[in-house]
């Protein structure tokens, strides 16, 4: 019997990750709840003046998306590491580069995509002008992909450590900054009526680069973590 094609294997892994997530719905709900609650914190801290909130809304929404992505990325490989599934994945006659993309894809679908889809609700709560909502969703869709890819590098490097949770933020947050800059800039541009296209294009370019390179780092990181 010949091994299945790597793409087929990747799809299977993606399906497994999604089934696991669906069977523990709280894992899907947590980032969304986190998003909602932190959105509620900002008016309490900054004051409820609608204009002021609207001015800060692009940055606020992007920072929360970034943080919820960070908080969930720590868990991407952890349970598979602990129960030994990850060892088996490394030994499977399949390219790790592709398998890793399945993990990232599942993470993005569960956090990035869902957050992007519900973000208009929170955008309206923060008085973000309606004209910028479309750009917000688009920028989150593209940017959260980069965040997932980069966050998984940190997750792969720290998965073997007992207390990786705090460390991963130190490793990953500096790498998140360009995404934050261009993501919030895209939304701001849309608010002021300027063209958001260039920013989205840069986010897209970052996404392409991250898809090409980060699985290499993740695969190397996983092999090292399994060894430690």
């Amino acid at each position, binding site marked *: 019997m010949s091994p299945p094609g790597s793409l087929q294997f990747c799809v299977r892994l993606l399906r497994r990750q999604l089934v696991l997530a669906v069977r523990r719905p709280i894992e899907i709900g947590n980032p969304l709840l986190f998003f909602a609650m932190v959105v509620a914190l900002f008016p309490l801290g900054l004051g409820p003046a609608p204009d002021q909130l609207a001015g800060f809304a692009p940055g606020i929404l992007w920072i929360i998306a970034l943080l919820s992505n960070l908080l969930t990325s720590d868990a991407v490989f952890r349970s598979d590491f602990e129960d030994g599934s990850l060892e088996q994945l490394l030994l499977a006659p399949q390219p790790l580069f592709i398998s890793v993309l399945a993990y990232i894809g599942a993470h993005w679908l569960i956090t990035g995509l869902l957050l992007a889809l519900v973000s208009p609700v929170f955008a309206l709560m923060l008085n973000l002008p309606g004209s910028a909502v479309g750009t917000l969703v688009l920028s989150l869709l593209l940017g959260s992909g980069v965040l997932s890819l980069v966050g998984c*590098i940190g997750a792969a*490097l*720290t998965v*073997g*450590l007992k*207390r*990786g949770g705090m*460390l991963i933020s*130190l*490793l990953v*947050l*500096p*790498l998140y*900054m*360009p995404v934050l*800059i*261009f993501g919030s*800039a895209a939304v701001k541009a849309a608010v002021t009526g300027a063209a958001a296209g260039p920013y989205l294009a840069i986010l897209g370019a*970052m996404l392409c680069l991250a898809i090409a*390179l*980060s699985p290499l*780092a993740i695969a*190397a*990181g996983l092999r*090292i*973590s399994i*060894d*430690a």
Partner: protein
Amino acid sequence: MWSFFHKLGSPPWLYSISGVILRWLLPITLVALAVGLTWGLLFTVPDFRQGNSYRIIYIHVPAAVVALAGYYVMAIAGAINLIWKMKMADVAMKSAAPVGAALTFVALLTGAIWGKPTWGTWWVWDARITSMLILLFLYLGVIALYEAFDNKEAAGKACAVLCLVGMVNIPIIYKSVDWWYSLHQPASIKFTGDSSIDTSMLYPLLLTIAAFYALFTCCLLMNMRAELLQRGARTSWVKKLALAGKST
């Protein structure tokens, strides 16, 4: 050529040759630093806009330049460790991290001190200072990751991966921060001329930059020597060295 690489992989050889290099390089470095800093501090003419506070440039810029270069040294050493499995590269990577972090810290601190008389505040979210802050985070991340692993061989490999990821990201971070700053920059605040620097100011600056590079090399070599001994604690050459007493 190959025998050189072979020797490079031998801890006792590296230990003794670095001792010889340091015997020459360390005094040269100290003299260059003393001359460069005194020159900048006492003998150059003040900037016509910033007055004497600009003298901080002779430590701020060299520290920043070498701190950035240090990250690349670390990342390249990490790559060599990953690709050719050279243990000395791991030693070099680990030894470069604290030196680079210290220099980044110096660059940040002097930047802040410079900011007070120039801009009136201790901290300005200026593109360069922000980049330096992120660079400090990158350094601290590498150090923290190394410390978090119990298995030091795995720690070296993991840090090497992280350094390489950082190396790819530094230009992106730098460019995006630069661009972000130009977008938000208020018209009144402007970083003073880097291209229009007078030669009387430039020469001491070049000297201090060279001196800081030499300083980095010295610290790197000294850290590597200490690390080589600790890693080879059970080998006979280290035992001999320990029993020989006051060895240099």
